[in-house]
């Protein structure tokens, strides 16, 4: 699998250079959000706002009022938990064109509870005027910058960083989910890093005779409920959602709401964090521990179909192991 190093860094710089109204804001996580090179090369377009997110959110609202489109860079969790009131009053309500670039979504950080945005989708999608996007591969990271900047209003983006696999060869387009497989037994809905897990499981499931229909979401709000319902109606056994997030309020809830509102009765298994916090650890460990990995998906398929597949970890494609501590970022933060 092709791995792309720091896809955000180049994509943001290229976009910002073409759009003088774009400003780069950071809250003391500049290299962690891959904008250190931008800071060094374009200091007049870079605004350090320090460890003060409440001010940063309202300040960005003021920049938006002046006609700028600030890109805010921090870990996703720091963009909404502490400064939620500022997000509401200064950014979301007045529909400022503020781009919230949330790095290290869900369990992609070993930083534990304080660093893990596990309810960000749930929070963000309930906010009127907000658009919510999530990247699942390097191509989506590269294309989300320009795509998010087309939105006439605020946007929250879950961004992958560092060494990111390339799964797709077409850019992220808001509102366009990707149909990755068109099987007839089970519908699997994924987003972000769980798409790669589902791709790992799909090969083994196919060999075991299970035909999977697989949707990859990159636009979580607005949510295309009608298309989800159409896909759900076309499978025999039911639906599984797999998300790097709490199952409440996230993709599992969105799919459940879509099915219920359409009056479509399908069994639904929601994989992800089950009303629990996570803790610090490597991504593969956390995905296994909290039932968010490829094998967890296989077991959910078995529950849905009522048939054992015989698949074990060895049957799955090799797990991509990443060193938590790398030379590039000793802390992994």
């Amino acid at each position, binding site marked *: 699998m092709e791995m792309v190093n720091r896809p955000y860094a180049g994509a943001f710089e290229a976009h910002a250079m073409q759009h003088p109204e774009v400003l780069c804001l950071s809250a003391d996580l500049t290299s962690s959000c891959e904008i250190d090179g931008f800071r060094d090369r374009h200091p007049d377009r870079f605004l350090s706002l320090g460890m003060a997110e409440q001010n940063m959110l309202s*300040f960005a609202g003021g920049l938006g009022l002046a006609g700028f489109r600030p890109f805010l860079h921090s870990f996703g969790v720091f963009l909404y938990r502490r400064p939620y009131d500022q997000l509401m009053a200064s950014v979301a309500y*007045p529909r400022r064109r503020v781009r919230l670039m949330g790095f290290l979504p869900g369990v992609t950080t070993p930083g534990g509870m304080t660093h893990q945005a596990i309810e960000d989708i749930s929070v963000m999608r309930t906010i009127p005027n907000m658009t919510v996007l999530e990247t699942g591969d390097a191509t989506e990271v590269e294309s989300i910058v320009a795509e998010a900047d087309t939105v006439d209003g605020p946007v929250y983006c879950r961004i992958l960083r560092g060494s990111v696999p390339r799964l797709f060869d077409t850019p992220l387009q808001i509102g366009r989910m990707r149909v990755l497989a068109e099987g007839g037994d089970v519908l699997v809905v994924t987003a972000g890093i769980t798409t790669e897990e589902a791709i790992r499981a799909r090969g083994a499931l196919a060999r075991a005779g299970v035909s999977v229909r697989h949707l990859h979401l990159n636009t979580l709000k607005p949510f295309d409920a009608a298309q989800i319902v159409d896909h759900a109606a076309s499978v025999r056994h039911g639906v599984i959602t797999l998300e790097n997030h709490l199952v409440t309020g996230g993709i599992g809830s969105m799919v459940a709401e879509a099915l219920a509102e359409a009056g479509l009765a399908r069994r639904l298994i929601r994989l992800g964090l089950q009303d629990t916090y996570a803790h610090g650890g490597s991504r593969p460990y956390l995905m296994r521990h909290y039932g968010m990995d490829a094998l967890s998906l296989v077991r959910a398929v078995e529950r849905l179909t009522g048939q054992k597949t015989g698949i074990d970890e060895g049957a799955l494609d090799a797990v991509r192991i990443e060193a938590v501590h790398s030379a590039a970022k000793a802390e992994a933060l």
Partner: protein
Amino acid sequence: MRNEKSTEEVARGIRARVFEHTIRNNGGYLSQACSAAEQLAFLYNEGLNLGPSTMPAVPPPFSGVPSADNLDYVTGAGYNGPFDAVHDRLFIAPAHYALVAYACLIEVGRMAPEGLAMFNKDGSSVEMIGAEHSPGMEVHNGTLGIGLSTAAGLAFGRRRLGHTGRVCVFMSDGEVQEGQTWEAVQAAAHHGIDNLWAIMDVNRQQCDGAMEDVMTVGDIATKFRDFGATVAECDAHDLAAMRAAAATPHPGRPLIVLAHSRPTQGMDSLMSRFPRLHYVRFKSEDERLRMNLEIAAELGIAPVELEAR
């Protein structure tokens, strides 16, 4: 745009209108008119460079919140004049001062007196806690402490755009209890945002009562200086002193004018309620009638004519 009235007359008019409204409605932010009348009168009548209002004198009804489906949405900023490169912008950070701000808009000819009759009426844009769409308002500041940050961002953006107009925030001293106020000052100082200034109504009162009882804040002038602001202080009821304070040079830094006020200025009868001054609602019909006579006499106006109950 300069008004025909003197700033002193505008301040007297603000107190009279808020007094009349409070008596008629048996409640209102009356103490805020006492403490802030000169500050708002100064800002609108001489301190700020504002163009003529772009909005109808009688405020239009509430026309929906901002959304992708409501593209005709406008804020109440047009009452403060056009949004252009040369004029100043004003945020009323303590949004519960709205009643006082509306009274000021009437006194300086930017809103018709009928506007105040719409105050806090269902379906009206003249809301009790000033909203973005309320006359004279431009952003939501109802959660105290966010106004200065927003103004700092606007001022930074305006500087990049080459605007000559400045950004002013009318603040309340209770806001210094919020951490965000200090985040805003340090950011404005760090980035040298000197097209930003604020005038703060230092009345030492907050919702629960006197600030020294609710949460001691210490020497806020020193604190603001330590966070990087230029600070000027004045008696909030001495317009000459206010003019001098607002004219303080502040190159490379934001200016904070601390206007030390009295929460019963012009209406000493209110002292009988001290320290419960945040929202004046009369405890009895007797108190209401007594206050009507006493305060009217202090203000040198006729008592409010009340319909028989």
